[in-house]
């Protein structure tokens, strides 16, 4: 594109001579300004001081898109060490919760299997050893269960987060196995004392095994809810 010499002089474009030298200057073959010259001139001419200040603030050039240029709010781009610390503490506590929870299934299942040995079956009473083993496993299960629960309950909450997915089922099942884990050892202790006195299990204590099985089932479902998806 040819630009008239008058305009070149007027706009100080490369190829145009400065106005004060035009009269005495020897005629030179004129170089036509390239498109990049025109672009550079237009950019300079049309830039406001505000634009220049903005450009200086950006580390990148006009040919490189920037993160700020994508329009993300600064709060979203900027890291937050305190929040990271909170996430790490939460994660650490929940990892312990998860591992202890899995380990708790061992004495829990063992307690379920030793139940008939404590109670007796086929009309025969259970042996005192069987009762003691069952009681020991019950105490171990209860202790491990509440330690597991402690790590979940004390894990810091992340502000602004909502629960969704199967974790909601995991949390909902707490309403079944938590009371169950309080009730089962109490009923077990009553049943144990009745057996020790040579009495048949009666009253509320006869629900010990039903409550224990329901509790174990809810606990197993809670465990599966984090395993499956």
């Amino acid at each position, binding site marked *: *594109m040819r*630009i008239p010499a008058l*305009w070149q002089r*007027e*706009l100080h474009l490369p190829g145009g001579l400065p106005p004060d030298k035009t009269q005495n200057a020897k005629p030179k073959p004129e170089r036509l300004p390239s*498109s*990049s010259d*025109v*672009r550079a001139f*237009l950019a300079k*001419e*049309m830039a406001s001081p505000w634009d220049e200040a903005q450009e200086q603030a950006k580390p990148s050039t*006009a*040919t*490189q*898109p*920037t*993160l700020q*240029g*994508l*329009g*993300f709010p600064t709060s*979203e*781009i*900027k*890291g*937050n*060490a305190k*929040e*990271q610390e*909170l*996430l*790490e503490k*939460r*994660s650490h506590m*929940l*990892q312990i919760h*998860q*591992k202890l929870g*899995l380990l708790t299934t061992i004495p829990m299942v063992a307690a379920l299997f030793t139940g008939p040995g404590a109670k007796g079956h086929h009309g025969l009473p259970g042996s005192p050893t069987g009762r003691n083993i069952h009681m020991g496993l019950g105490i171990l299960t209860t202790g491990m269960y509440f330690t597991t629960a402690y790590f979940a309950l004390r894990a810091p909450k*992340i502000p602004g*987060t*909502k*629960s*969704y*997915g*199967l*974790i909601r089922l*995991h949390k909902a099942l707490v309403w079944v196995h938590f009371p169950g884990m309080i009730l089962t050892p109490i009923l077990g202790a009553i049943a144990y004392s009745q057996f020790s006195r040579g009495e048949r299990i009666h009253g509320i204590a006869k629900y010990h095994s039903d409550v224990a099985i329901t509790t174990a089932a809810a606990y197993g479902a809670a465990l599966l809810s*984090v*395993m*499956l*998806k």
Partner: protein
Amino acid sequence: MSIKKTMTHRRLLVSVLLLFAVPQLLPGATQWVLIKSSLTYHISHPLHEADGVSHAARGKGICQAGECNFLVAAPVKTFDSGNSNRDLHMLEDVRGAQFPMVIVRFRLPRASLSAAMIHANLEVQFAGHTAEYKDVAFRQVTKGNEVEVSGTIPMKLSDFKIPPPQLLFMPIKNEVPVRVDTTWRKM
């Protein structure tokens, strides 16, 4: 001639010049903007598989002098795997609060934008580390003024020094491929 008159004269000339220069300015000022996106990571665990999706990515491409520079970024916390607990663990493992963005940069020759397949060298910034993925293939479909670009980035946790998260004493696989489905519009 007064200064004011000179300025008016210059502005008039600039306007006329602009008219002449527009055809030449166009090839140097092409911009692409990401208008729709879906980034999906896939994790494999011995017990199950899971996908986390984000639709919150933003991107821009600037083409100049035969070369285009692209930038795509998404907040890490916008990835949704369908389980809030897993998402929070993911956020912790990838240090998402400290490094809240996953950023992808790549450069392409302008000529390659019209091809059906694009092969790009990606620079991915994630979890406080930068990894490069060479020659990643993306399929490109042009629909009017828009272009749909899709492909998979073969990301690995070890590339970003992320220890594989564990569930019930079992770690997830190191390979976490990220499926990219994007729609770009030429501005």
